[in-house]
Each structure stands twice: as C-alpha cells, then as structure tokens.
C-alpha cells in the first residue's frame, strides 16, 4: 500500500555492527593512524581538495566508522602530491596510508 511516505533510513553510525577490517589492517602497518588529532591541515592544503571533496581527515574517520566504500571513493581523487604529509603536525605518513588502504 502506498502511504505517500516511508521509513527513513537511520542516520546513526552503528558502531556495534561496523566492519573495521580495513582500518585494523591499516593500523598494523601504520600505527600512526591512531595519532590523528583532526586538525584539518591535510584537508586545507590538499591540492585535489581545491577542486573536490577530498579530505584525508574525514577519510580516516570514514574508515573508523565503517564507511569503507565512501573512503575508497574519496581516495580516487587523490593526486598523491604529498603536501598533506608535509604539513601534518603529528608526522603521519599519509601517502603511505592512502596507498595501503586499497591493498
């Protein structure tokens, strides 16, 4: 029966049921993924981010919140120029992490 409306999908991040395989795997080879303080330097300096939604800070969060598909889609925009790695105050090897995500 068509009521003219339907259930809205939940906007919650379901932490109990998300799949963190990629992030956990990443953590093994790059322990520094845990040290991000979300300052946003990477996003603001991003060459690709100048034209697109590319944001490494959010990408890391996506992986931590089980949004792997979104993260992988975002990576496609990356030019690998390395500016983010250069400005990161925590010295995170961002380029390596970006490349490792898709392994």
């Amino acid at each position, binding site marked *: 029966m068509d009521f003219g409306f339907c259930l809205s999908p939940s906007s919650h991040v379901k932490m109990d049921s998300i799949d963190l395989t990629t992030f956990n795997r990443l953590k093994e080879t790059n322990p520094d993924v845990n040290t991000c303080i979300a300052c946003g330097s990477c996003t603001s300096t991003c*060459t690709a981010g100048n034209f697109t939604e590319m944001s490494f800070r959010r990408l890391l969060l996506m992986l931590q919140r089980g949004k792997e598909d979104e993260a992988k889609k975002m990576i496609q925009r990356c030019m*690998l120029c390395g500016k983010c790695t250069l400005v990161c105050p925590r010295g995170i090897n961002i380029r390596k992490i970006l490349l490792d995500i898709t392994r």
Partner: protein
Amino acid sequence: MNQYIFHPFVLPFVLGMAFVLTYCLVGLFRIIGQLPKDDRKKFWRSLVTPKTAWANIRDLFGDCLFHVKIWKRNPILGYMHSAIAFGWFMIIVIGHVMLFTLKPLQDVDVHGFARTFTNFYYPIFYKHFAEETPVFAFLMDFFLIVIITGIFIAVVKKIYSGVVGVKRVTKFGFADNMIRFALWTIFPFRLIAEKTNIMAFWWLYSIDLMIFMCMLPFTRYMHIPTEALFILLKHAGLKPREPRKGYALAQIYSCPSCGLCIDACPMSVNDKNSGNTSAYFMKKLRNADDAEAKRIAETCMQCGKCVAVCPVSIESCDIKMSQREATPYIINSDHSYLENVESSSSVNSTVLYFAGCMTQLTPKIMRSMKKIMEAAGENYEFLDKDGGICCGRPMMLSGKKSEAQAMIDKNTELIKKSGAKKLVLSCPICYKVFKEEYKLEGIEIQHHTQYINELIKNGKLKVSKGDVNYVYHDPCELGRAFGVYDEPREVLENVGNLRKAKSEKELSICCGGSLGSFNLTQQERDEITANSVDDLMYNHPDEIVTACPLCLKTFSKKSPVQVKDISEIVSEKI
C-alpha cells in the same frame, strides 16, 4: 703414452667449466628473448652503430677489465679487485698463449679432437703437463702472486672493512660465503701445487675450481660473465620494463653485491635501514623474494646516489620504479574533475612560472621569484597563483603512470594555452617530470637556478656580492637526475662565498624529505636529515642554500643555521 696429457684431476674443472658455459649461454638467450621486441631491435642496431659500438669497447675494457670506476672510488679497493680479476684474466690469457709455444713434458703428438679437448684444461694445469720457458714462468708466477696479494686484502677487508674506506659491507648467505672461500683458496692451492707438484693439491685446486664454477650462477660472482652483456644493453639505451625480466635481469646478475651503495645510501644512517639499500634489493630480486623486493622498492627515496656510486652503474632506481609499476597500488584514480579546472593566469606572457604544490608551502620562494622576475623586467605570469594541479611526478613515483598522465595532460593544456615561450619551475620534483614526460614543444623548461643564472649572465639581473658564506645542497632530482650542478654554484658565487660540503654534487646526500619513499617514518627521515645537515655544515657555512622547497622545509627543522632557497638569497641581493 697419454697418461701425462690427461690426468683424472682435471675432470672436476672440466665439468665445472662445461656447466657454467652452458648456463651462461642459456641465460644469454633467455635475457635476449625476454626483451620486448622494440628493445631487441634497438639492441641489435646498437651493436653496429659506430657510436655505441665504440662506447661498448671502451666500457668493456674500462669497466670489465680495468675496473676504472672502483679505482676512482678507492684505490685500495681498486687494487684488490683488479689484482684478483685482472690477474686471473692475465694468467688465463698467458696460459693460452703458452699453449702454442710449450712442449708437453712427454713428447707425445696430440692431434684433432684430443688436442682441442686438451686446450680446455691444459693452460690451467700446465705445470703438471708441460715444460715452461722462463719468461712465461715469471709472468705466470708474478700474476699469481698479484692475485694472492689481492686475496690477502680481501681477507683483511672481511675482518675490518675500514681499510678500504668502507663502513658497511653486504651480509652474505651460505652460498656466497662458500664460493668466496672457494675463490680465496683456488690460488694458494695452485701455487702450492705448482711449486711442490703434490697430487693432492692438484686435486684440491681442480675441485675448488669446480665448486667456484658450479656455484657461480647462484651467487654474486655471476656478475663476472654478465657485466659484459649489461654494458651492451645499457649502451643500446634500454630501460628496465619489468623488475625481473630481460634488461633488469641482466642488471640483477651484474650486481656484484659489493655493497658500495650501502654506505652511500642516505637511509643507512640508521643501521636498521641499511638492509633497504640497493645491494639488498638486487639480492632479493635475484632470490625472487618479491614481497621484500617490493617493500624495499617502496622504501627507497629515489635519490639516485646508489646509481652514482655503483661501480657497475646498475640502474637500481629504474628497476625499483619498474618494481613499483609491476604491482601498482589499486586506487582507481578518478581525476575527471580536472576537466573543469581553469588556470588563474592570463595569456600573453613570455615566461610562465609554475610554483608547484610544495612551493605553495614555502611562500618565500614564490615571493622571491616574483621580485627577481620583476627586477629583470621579465614579462611573466604565475600559472598556479591560486593553487594548481599536481605535476604528476608523485603519482609516477607510486608506479601509476597512466593516472599521472591525467595531470600531465591538464597541465600541458594550461601551459600551451598561455602561449609562453619559457616555463620556470621552482621545484625539482616538478622539473624531473616536466623534462621527462611532458611534451611541450617550443617551450623551454628551466629550473629557477638555471633561469636566475641566465638572467645574471645576460645582464638582465644585477646583483651585489655580499660576504656571507654559503653551502649549496644539490637536490637529488636536479643534481643527480639532470646534472644541474654548476648553475646554482655560479649564481651563489655572484652573491657571496661558496663553501664546500663534505659530499657534493653527485655524492650529495638526500635531505630525507623525499617524496620517493612511502615507508620511511618521520623519525627515520629526521635521522637522514640530521646526517645530511652535518655533511653540509662540514665547512661551517653561515647559511645553507638549496633549490628545492621540500629540501628547504626538511632542513629548516634540523639545521643550526638559516636555510634559504637560492631565489631568496638572490632576491636579497638585488
């Protein structure tokens, strides 16, 4: 009586020799067969082209026989290597010459097949079979003694590598150690056998030779037969396409694992990382340890210093790149958004300046360049004033050529649209890819060091000389990659005093910031930087000058003195 012409102790040697010859022949066909078609064509053509043919002859003698490059690196090392290799070569040659002059001890006439077969081992064991003339006897003994002195140095080097100016040597496995021991004992055994004629030593000598030859294909000594082929292939102008096939395979076999690259590699400041140097990379490839080879290829900073110091000129950086290309990261890049990117610059300037991503983070360089171009009265324009597109080099470094092409194409379009005649770059990383991959016919590509030097030389830019003592750091991708060593130094001579670093030009040490490496951690990079700074501070300069925004940023963190870009220095002196 044939018994003196033939003795069973020659058999081990003959077997070994037969094996190694067969192996090399098969290997030769295999390598040539693995070359891509166009490369093979190039190779055949190079053999008959006078220019390359001459280069082949020169290098075959210079490198394979006289080891000029090792002599240049370190005379003791040169002597050691030449003593063994050239000495051995000489006793083989002289032995063969003797074959035609000497009389067998038993006056037996040997003909046909028997004679040919005899040739095979006769010169190797001649003292057992023939009477010698004093001149030859002296020559043979002389070279044998020379070889033994070489071996003596080698033994000392094994105990203390410092004697030949080498800090670290390659660590070998069982096979390599074993064959080395065989090599070391061959000549003493021969000497004893020749002087005493005790049968047991003839046997030992022959068996030693067999061990050496049978193990040769599986150890680093394979470089002895392969290097010649490698020289020919190199002069044909080939590039390694796959990490373990064809040309690359020839290089893998040609690597003598001498370990000169270990000390040279900037990463070796940390002992843990000395295992990530080219010597080990080639070893991993030879042992078909793909996972490790891949890891090392991705750890390498691509500074090219190992290539610069390599006595065999193994192009390990290129092989590492081909390794990266062989298993690229799967990102499925989507750069379709580039279509809509517009340049912020207007048309109609003769000089187009492209700062590049890194220079955006060092605004001083951009500002200095602006000042310089204005002072020189140039008609210039900035291509990426408002932030531009990456040049594509970092993408290439990750082995993703086709993805990089998207950026290359877009930048090419923007540059061509500007109508400029000259493109000036501040970043050597960009410079390399612009020089190698961009097709910008009619547009001159210059790094700003070259550009500034030209402006000063043709009088467009007037600078004053100060009394500051500078030391210049050669950025890897400007120096070793393109040999731009003199222009920056000339510029600096014009504005101040130039002091020498401990390691300069092709030996300069990477700053540690390199985009080439994916795996190095910040801490490992810091160690490299500190070492490089120490090297630059050798003659106590007042300021460190470099010509790369990445070097500038990297050094600034660790340097005790001010670090500046060359453009900044010049702009201060206008």
